[in-house]
């Protein structure tokens, strides 16, 4: 609510915690007159609590979730409250501040994104048919998987490149800011239960053989062949705070930015654009767009449906 009239005292300096939405009201209610009963602001209490939680986490642990999209953040925090058996977000904040293992658990919840092999087969098919040929013309190809989580798409990419005969000239940089997720990606072990779904995806994505050619089954797990990660560099990188570290022919950043608010999306889009070589290709998640990217008009569309964009110069 905007302050009314000229007599209203100016609001106290605004502390922007959530990326500074334009319509955000001042964070503090007007001063109370003596003897007046307390009038809590009619603002959503939980929104205050969420902002305080992310601020506390940032100041205590240096982990910055302040520009995460509110709806998913709230849901994940609610799941964490259930897990930690507390009934308010403030109680969870209290626990996080005093109990680092609780923070470790929340970190997993907030940062490991669910992924699958050849998720959206049409995307990988489009990579094969519309991108691989242009990569072929380079003697050395650099690929960045930004926010690779547990690595399923990295192995998918490695398989695709092997089948297309250009794996040996490629280097894949697979990054995530969560070390636990990265370690799982390095291990390259997934549950055998998932492999049926992944096999179907693989074939729809234009796979030349059988997905089982690329792993060995062992006690309910599928272990990927070491040759798939021969040219993969797994390393920690935080899209929220870190900068560009190379120039790439192809960058995949799929279903990562949907967890960010618009301000943070904007930052990451700048980072990705700045990390693309000339004619480099950017691949986003199936429901992600360049809207909100400062470089929206700097790309040309390679495949609208599969969200493949090329930096023309």
């Amino acid at each position, binding site marked *: 609510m905007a302050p009314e009239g000229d007599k209203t005292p100016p609001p106290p300096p605004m502390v922007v915690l959530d990326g500074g939405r334009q319509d955000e009201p001042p964070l503090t209610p007007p001063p109370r007159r003596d003897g007046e009963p307390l009038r809590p602001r009619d603002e*959503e209490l*939980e929104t205050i609590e969420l902002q305080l939680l992310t601020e506390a986490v940032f100041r205590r642990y240096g982990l910055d979730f302040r520009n995460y*999209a*509110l*709806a*998913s953040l*709230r*849901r*994940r925090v*609610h799941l964490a409250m259930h897990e930690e058996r507390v009934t308010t977000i403030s109680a969870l904040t209290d626990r996080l501040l005093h109990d680092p293992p609780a923070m470790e658990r929340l970190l997993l919840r907030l940062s490991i*994104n*669910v*992924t699958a092999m050849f*998720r*959206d*087969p*049409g995307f990988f098919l489009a990579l094969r048919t519309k991108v691989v040929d242009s990569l072929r013309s380079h003697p050395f190809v650099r690929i960045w998987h930004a926010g690779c989580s547990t690595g399923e798409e990295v192995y998918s990419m490695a398989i695709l490149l092997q089948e297309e005969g250009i794996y040996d000239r490629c280097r894949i940089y697979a990054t995530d800011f969560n070390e636990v997720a990265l370690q799982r990606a390095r291990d390259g072990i997934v549950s055998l239960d998932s492999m049926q*779904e992944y096999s179907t995806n693989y074939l*729809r994505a234009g796979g030349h053989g059988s997905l089982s050619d690329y792993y060995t089954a062992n006690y309910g797990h599928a272990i990927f062949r070491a040759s798939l990660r021969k040219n993969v560099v797994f390393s920690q990188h935080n899209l929220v705070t870190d900068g560009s570290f190379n120039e790439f022919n192809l960058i995949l950043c799929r*279903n990562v930015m*949907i*967890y960010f608010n*618009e301000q943070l*999306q904007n930052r990451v889009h700048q980072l990705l654009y700045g990390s693309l070589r000339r004619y480099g290709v950017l691949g986003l*998640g*199936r*429901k*992600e*767009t360049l*809207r*909100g990217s400062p470089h929206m008009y700097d790309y040309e569309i390679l495949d609208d*449906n599969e969200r493949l964009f090329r930096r023309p110069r």
Partner: protein
Amino acid sequence: MSSPADAKLVVVGTSLGGMRALEIILRGLGHDFPLPVCVVQHRGADWDGQQSQLTRLLQLHCALPVVEAGDKEPMVGGRIYLAPADYHLLVDDGVLALSVDGRVLHARPSIDVLFESAAEAYREGVLAVLLTGASSDGTAGAQRVKRRGGTVIAQDPRSCESPVMPQSAITAGVVDRVLPLEEIAPFLNVAAVTHR
């Protein structure tokens, strides 16, 4: 039950038999229906093409624009937003949001996820509708909608292709109105216009 005069958003969840039920409801909404409508229809983890086909089929029966929900897309009144295949649909204050978090009760999109986010963002402004379906997805979400002061409508299980979904919410005691399928759209029309 809160007054429908507070309604700001309609959320709808359905699975088995949902196509026919959705057709009837969408056909019944007034062409000047003022609220955004978010819909989760369960279906297999599918791929290319099928999604746009669902949107197109529903559009045939609806005077209002039926679109697939996009991430961070501002919600507009009188539009029907379908959760995309294999994504959860959530709402925040005035905008749609997507996530690829794990399946909930084997479902992505999940009705619970949509309803819960709507309850948190819109409180008493939520009109939640549970239609025919073969799982108990939606009950926890309806519970949250109730707790935050919103209104929950369930399709009369006797008129359902599969009664499990509305019956589960009714049994949990979180439903305000049980309506035959044909009466749901008229109810929403009145609730939305009163709001105006």
